[in-house]
């Protein structure tokens, strides 16, 4: 049996996504458990995980709901947390923009951190992949993790208090993100961009609803591009 090139890439995406399952399974279960303990019913908890698929925004919304924040504030904060995904959308458009509208809509629904990061790494390494191969890889990296996200949210919601919520999973999230970023630090421009991002987000920590992140990220984009231009000029002059 021979698989089509797109199906092969789907499997590669699924395989490259495996390390993230270490984090997603407990994270989803904990979300399900604490959401249930906070008073949401199973349908509501699953509504979050299936309709939104955005772990950190879901947790932020849950936190504010338990503090009985006004509905509008909960919505605004959770969406601010997700605004970074607008940058993902722009950044992945050169690769997936030629797909059909339906495919792009489905890809948008699944454009969360992990498949975005995996696909960007892949498409930069192998720019000659065809559109269907790129689409295959993207969905391969997105769909299995999303299914795990739904299933483990459900498990957490049903098991509720039997799930230990203080086993250090909060640390697993930064570790996976660092593990994704570190291999990308291959030029001075990438390092400068990442450092700008870290320093600014810490300085701008006072800004409301996590909006400091957006300012820091935007500045870091500019720094990365500027340093790249500067390095290109130096190379040309040498």
């Amino acid at each position, binding site marked *: 049996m021979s698989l089509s090139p797109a199906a092969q890439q789907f499997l590669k995406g699924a395989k*490259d996504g495996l*390390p993230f399952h*270490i984090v997603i399974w407990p994270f989803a279960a904990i979300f399900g458990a604490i959401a249930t303990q*906070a*008073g949401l019913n199973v349908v*509501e908890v699953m509504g*979050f995980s299936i*309709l*939104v698929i955005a772990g950190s925004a879901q947790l932020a*919304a849950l936190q504010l709901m*338990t503090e*009985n924040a006004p*509905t509008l504030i909960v919505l605004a904060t959770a*969406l601010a947390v*997700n*605004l*970074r995904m*607008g*940058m*993902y*959308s*722009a*950044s992945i*458009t050169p690769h*997936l*923009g*030629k797909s059909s*509208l339906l495919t*792009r809509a489905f890809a*948008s629904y699944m454009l969360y*951190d992990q498949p975005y*990061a995996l696909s960007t*790494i892949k498409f930069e390494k192998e720019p000659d992949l065809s559109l269907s191969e790129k689409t295959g890889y993207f969905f391969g990296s997105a769909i299995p993790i999303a299914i795990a996200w739904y299933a483990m949210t459900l498990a957490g919601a049903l098991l509720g208090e039997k799930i230990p919520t203080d086993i*250090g999973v909060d*640390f697993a*999230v*930064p570790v*996976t993100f*660092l*593990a*994704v*970023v*570190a*291999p*990308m*630090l*291959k030029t001075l421009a990438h390092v400068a*961009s*990442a450092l700008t*991002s*870290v320093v600014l*987000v*810490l300085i701008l920590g006072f800004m409301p609803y996590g909006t400091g*992140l957006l300012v*820091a*990220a935007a500045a*870091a*984009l500019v720094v*990365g*591009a500027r340093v790249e231009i500067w390095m290109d000029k130096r190379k040309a002059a040498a």
Partner: protein
Amino acid sequence: MIEASSTQIWIIIVGMAIGTFLIRFSFLGLVGDRPLPAWLLRLLRYTPVAVLPAVVAPMLLGAKADMDPLRLFCAAATILVGVWTKNVLWAIITGLGLFFGLGAVIG
């Protein structure tokens, strides 16, 4: 406990779902296959290294973080192994392995 009514809860869920989708759909859906200008593409190449560190840094070093030396050490090890091996899996195994391993030893 959450005191919001079922209606309020569903307004939040559906509002987040629609808003998040529109954010993710913004460029991919509306720009589609129209070419983006070169300067914008250059900026966008830095998206992962510009966004993800800004997500992580407050968790480890922000005002509300507990600055646990074990976590900072394991985070540094994750970065070093990631830069060195260029391999996401090895970096995760190092970071989490050290965290849970040393955590069990130190208690």
